[in-house]
């Protein structure tokens, strides 16, 4: 089952990262890969793995939107396609961009509406959205001035909810209608814990900085009702048209789901992700020693291997899918009794070939022996106000090989795993690949046993039918 390493997806060039590295982890001598469907054959197969598959995304979007009622949109209305820059990081951003382009085309054709604007939410940086919009051809598609970004400090708008007042970004809602154009990739599972995952943008990407911060204060198994409360508010509901969402599995993009009923989409995500990403989570949890190589065009936490982001390995010390567990990371109103236990002791050292600045990660480099590749990366972090003190804790190496040699020696293991943006497979050292292959059967047994409990905790039965967009022939059987 061990295969040659697979070139990872490309990523957009950014002012927030170093110059793209000529050498990726997948280029390391003797590097191998393990296909996620070799490990777990029932993972939902991808319709998109690389750029040549883009027509499948357009077709899937058209098919999904064909079943959506758009009669509320009149020719003279304005429509905002509300999106988030994180989608540009999923498999290089092309599939998400293609979905966004197709939404515009279909809505225009079906409704006669001409005033369709793309709004792209960003995390913090003032250039994030613009970089993606330009490099993925979104302004060219939507029209000049009709594809623009917004950020957490843009003008806010109060949203009265059953819980209290929250603050959204005015430019998300300044149209007759908005379409929630989102994605379901598996990141920060320890935060959303598959409770209302597709609603998250209403307290994050579409919200003011102050409101985003508030979500992090609440316990993460119960606090996710906040974004549900925003979604249910009269202010949002009066403007909400429908959702169109990029669906994924660890294998890649699996389809497009569109529906006005976001709760139904939520149920489908829970159903599929607990089973598919649940296996990847448990596989990561089974790793007892490793050296992750961070090698992507995004922030440390959000770069995947086999479709699952690095943060799930980093914080994979507790069962984040079991809702009887109240403690996971970064939910600060419940004080964690053992916060030091959160970061995974199986990570013995860390190599950073490339990633973005802007999210606090000095604490990670204080926790693990860390090598940065290239003085330019070190200089970049030296100026990063989110990670002061990071450079004093790390080694700087000239080449990736040097960094890997140092890390292997420091860690006492040659089990390397590359977080390089890959879906469908994990690029890794042969020893790591063989370890994962050995562990997979045990993981399958564990997830099969736990899945009914996880589903029940979220009000679902194991018999919940698959989403209608997926052909029955591609559907695996839920245990």
């Amino acid at each position: 089952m061990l295969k040659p390493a697979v070139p990872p997806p490309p990523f957009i060039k950014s002012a927030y990262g170093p110059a793209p590295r000529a050498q990726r982890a997948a280029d390391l001598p003797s590097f191998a890969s393990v296909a996620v469907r070799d490990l777990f054959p029932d993972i939902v197969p991808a319709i998109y793995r690389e750029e040549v598959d883009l027509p499948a995304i357009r077709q899937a979007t058209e098919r999904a939107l064909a079943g959506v009622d758009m009669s509320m949109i009149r020719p003279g209305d304005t429509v905002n396609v509300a999106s988030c820059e994180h989608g540009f990081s999923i498999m290089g951003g092309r599939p998400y961009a293609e979905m966004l382009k197709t939404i515009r085309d279909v809505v225009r054709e079906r409704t006669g509406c001409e005033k369709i604007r793309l709004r792209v939410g960003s995390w913090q940086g003032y250039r994030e959205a613009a970089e993606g919009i330009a490099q993925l051809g979104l302004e060219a598609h939507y029209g000049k001035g009709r594809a623009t970004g917004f950020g957490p400090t843009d003008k806010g708008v109060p949203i009265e909810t059953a819980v209290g007042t929250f603050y959204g970004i005015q430019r998300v809602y300044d149209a007759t209608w908005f379409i929630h154009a989102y994605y379901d990739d598996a990141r920060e599972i320890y935060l959303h814990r598959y409770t209302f995952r597709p609603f998250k943008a209403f307290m994050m990407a579409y919200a003011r900085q102050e409101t985003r911060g508030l979500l992090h204060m609440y316990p993460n198994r119960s606090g996710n009702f906040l974004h549900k409360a925003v979604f249910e508010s009269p202010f949002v509901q009066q403007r909400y048209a429908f959702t169109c969402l990029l669906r994924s599995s660890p294998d890649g993009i699996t389809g497009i789901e569109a529906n006005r009923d976001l709760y139904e989409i939520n149920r489908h995500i829970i159903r599929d992700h607990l089973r598919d990403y649940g296996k990847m989570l448990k596989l990561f949890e089974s790793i007892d020693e490793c050296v992750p190589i961070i090698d992507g065009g995004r922030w440390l936490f959000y770069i995947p291997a086999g479709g699952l982001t690095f943060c799930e390995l980093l914080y994979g010390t507790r069962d984040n899918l079991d809702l009887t567990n109240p403690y996971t990371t970064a939910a600060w109103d419940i004080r964690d009794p053992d916060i030091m236990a959160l970061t995974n002791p199986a990570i013995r050292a860390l190599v950073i070939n490339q990633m973005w600045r802007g999210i606090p990660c000095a604490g990670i480099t204080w926790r693990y022996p860390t090598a940065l590749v290239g003085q330019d990366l070190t200089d970049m972090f030296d100026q990063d106000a989110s990670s002061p003190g990071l450079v004093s804790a790390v080694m700087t190496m000239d080449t990736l090989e040097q960094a890997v040699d140092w890390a292997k020696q420091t860690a006492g293991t040659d089990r390397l795993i590359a977080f390089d943006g890959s879906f469908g497979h994990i690029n890794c050292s042969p020893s790591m690949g063989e370890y994962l292959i050995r562990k997979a059967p045990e993981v399958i047994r564990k997830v099969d046993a736990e899945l009914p409990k996880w589903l029940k905790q979220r009000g679902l039965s194991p018999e919940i039918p698959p989403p209608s967009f997926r052909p029955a022939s591609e559907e695996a059987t839920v245990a």
Partner: protein
Amino acid sequence: MLQVKFIAHVDRAKCSGCKLCEKVCLTDTIKVVNKVAVVDDDCLGCTRCVDICWHDEAVVMVPRPTPRYVGTDVNEVDAEQVRGLCAQAHRLPGELVCVCANTSAGEIAAAIIKGARSFKELSFATGVLQGCQEFCVPPIQRMLKVKGVDVTKAGGFLKYDQTLSMWDIPKAAQERFEYHFAEDLALATKSREGGE
């Protein structure tokens, strides 16, 4: 104690005087004077001005001749007052509030007790709010509110009161939303009793 190693620097020839940098500076240390941006030596190096100046590329970060150190010694103020202020904001003094500057609730409380009443004053006193702002804003707002500060007017681009804590959620809403809220509220309350 936060070490500030860099300071913003303006290339006068490139600066168009557009004032975007002014608008994103929480410490008011970059201002446009006679149509050119000027940086004050108090700059805490957050780099927002550099980031927003992407059309002109007139602002860069340069090393300070000597690093600047920012922080408030929590031992300089009465420990009971610190504990009390933190408790009213549902925090314990030793809890981390700003994961970027590594600033505790106790240090922020000490700075407020010593007189800080705005985001700018708290930034200079403790180094908070210069990084991601993803975690620190609501607890800082809660602590400032305890001292009667109108957090919608505490300065800069942070203008919205978002201090609603778990303990403020109306009972009817608590009951309406499922997923362990009452259980978590009890845990959160217990986890804040007696500790440091």
